[in-house]
């Protein structure tokens, strides 16, 4: 491929990175609006069904969010394979509601709690393309058509020798990705734990109830090393989002039909939530505000909102830097930084925030704003993060271990010796 063809393809792949990235805070915001183990529902006659829906909705939304992270990483791997450097830090939408990057005008989605309306927006994001729809590199109608355009560029303009830089990609032997975890899994019946435990097999009570919404055969984190693997990465993104183009139901996204597409998962949730009375939704959906910003909150919450945004942005920074490293340095920074940062820091901060009331008439709570936090300098980003954590008043009830966990996050500034420091 020529240099200009390479630059053009890299430009579209950077757009792909930003499309996938933009969906993550939107899905996570709605995810955190759901109390997955909602004791307030217990008092209602249909509490069991509501609690079951709540946990299922949480599991399904998280299962989609996990795959959006996978899609972003696959697009980044493609960029690295072609000699590009994906930009992630500072590339989250920042302001909501927002259109998706390079989507045609008229579409808009924001940070909103779980509702039938929000699920309709999610269906808009994951809308399957019509059979025979033309590829669109800009002003696109469906994500599938945008990736069709990239597929055309890969097929027509690249050869196997254009793909390099395998060592700098995420995946391969490092296997950073898991299709399911305890947050994607959900029970068939939320009240299963009221059944007696089998003393000869205590794990069976939960295991027999568990639904695993993702499946590895739908595609996983793979290294792009030639044209064939580049096309496979793109097809993984397309299938997981909207199912197979030649299947009018767009239900499954894997050959074994063990996993539903994002679109189908949201369609099912949408169908079910429309049957739930508005009052009943209140027992498991928290009173999240619409499209909150730091500036929209009372100033006493700024330290906590800033910390949440800084952690979110630091995780994007870790990911971006990881694509410039290889071997143990990449593994140490990405694996430890992302796992610790996502599960034990960001998740715990957002979890604590949502039980702080804003004391407004609507009874709203403090929800994440997912704004891009700009560190004063990348060189001091880690220290800045630690300092921010120390400004959060104890009265906010943040887990006492949060500061310590932030202190042992890996520093994104990896020295010339290749050693990641903490």
């Amino acid at each position, binding site marked *: 491929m020529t240099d200009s063809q390479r630059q053009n393809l890299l430009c579209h792949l950077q757009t792909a990175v930003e499309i996938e990235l933009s969906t993550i805070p939107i899905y996570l915001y709605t995810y955190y609006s759901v109390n*997955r*183990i909602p004791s307030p529902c217990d008092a209602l006659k249909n509490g069991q069904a509501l609690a079951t829906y709540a*946990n299922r909705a*949480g*599991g399904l939304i*998280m299962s989609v969010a996990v795959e959006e992270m996978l899609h972003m990483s696959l697009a980044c791997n493609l960029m690295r394979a072609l000699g590009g450097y994906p930009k992630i830090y500072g590339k989250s939408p920042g302001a909501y509601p927002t259109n998706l990057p390079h989507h045609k005008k008229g579409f808009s989605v924001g940070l909103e709690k779980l509702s039938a309306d929000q699920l309709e927006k999610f269906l808009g994001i994951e809308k399957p393309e019509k059979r025979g729809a033309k590829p669109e590199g800009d002003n696109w109608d469906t994500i599938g058509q945008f990736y069709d355009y990239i597929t055309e560029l890969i097929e027509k303009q690249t050869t196997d020798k254009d793909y390099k830089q395998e060592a700098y990609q995420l995946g391969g032997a490092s*296997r*950073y*990705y*898991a*299709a*399911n*975890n*305890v*947050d*994607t*899994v*959900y*029970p068939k019946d939320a009240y299963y*734990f009221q059944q007696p*435990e089998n*003393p*000869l*097999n*205590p*794990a069976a*009570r*939960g*295991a027999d*109830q*568990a639904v*695993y919404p993702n499946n*590895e055969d739908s595609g996983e984190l793979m290294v792009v090393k030639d044209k064939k693997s580049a096309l496979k990465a793109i097809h993984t993104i397309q299938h997981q989002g909207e199912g197979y183009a030649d299947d009018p139901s767009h239900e499954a996204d894997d050959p074994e039909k063990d996993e539903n597409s994002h679109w189908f998962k949201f369609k099912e949730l949408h169908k079910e939530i429309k049957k739930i009375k508005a009052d009943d939704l209140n027992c498991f959906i928290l009173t999240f505000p619409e499209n909150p910003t730091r500036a929209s909150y009372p100033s006493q919450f700024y330290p906590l909102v800033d910390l949440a945004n800084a952690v979110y942005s630091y995780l994007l920074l870790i990911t971006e830097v990881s694509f410039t490293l290889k071997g143990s340095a990449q593994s140490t920074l990405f*694996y*430890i930084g992302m*796992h*610790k940062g996502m*599960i*034990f820091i960001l*998740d*715990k901060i957002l*979890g604590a925030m949502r039980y702080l009331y804003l004391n407004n008439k609507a009874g709203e709570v403090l929800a994440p704003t997912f704004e891009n936090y700009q560190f004063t300098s990348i060189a001091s980003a880690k220290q800045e993060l630690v300092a921010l954590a120390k400004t959060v008043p104890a009265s906010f009830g943040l887990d006492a271990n949060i500061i310590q*966990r932030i202190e042992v996050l890996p520093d994104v500034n990896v020295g010339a010796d290749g050693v990641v420091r903490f």
Partner: protein
Amino acid sequence: MSSQNNIPIELHACMGLNACKGHDRLGANECAGMGTCATAAEHSCHTLNNCRGQGGCGLYGTAEEQNHPGDNPCSWRGSCAVPINAERFSTDGSNQGKSVWQRARVVFEQRMNRSSRTFGPSPSPVGPTTAWLKQNYNPDYNACGASGMSGGGSCI
């Protein structure tokens, strides 16, 4: 962690996973594999383990990690909370839907056999239940996961 006479002990993730006599939390077990409690520092989830062999598994982590509970290679490379409650099942990998503790015991026995070491039965063939851990170990014991399906509550 070291015993009273400062002889270092091998840290492990749970009941029945100790490699030596005296290597449980109470230092009272007679034989390998017969300890009642973890010597690894208690922690609630993935990557929070301090040392090799301290990861619990089953909640987060790759398929490979989830297949090697209590057998992680390094600090912060462990997969999930310690101690491993008996209710916990693996969420990914070839042990998906099966007991994490029983998988950890199999991995432990394989390690002992590779080292030509004898070992005794675990105090419980299924591992410690959450109720047992709360009563005998830590009343605030919990594990991770917003779904609540860890069987050990949720740490969110």
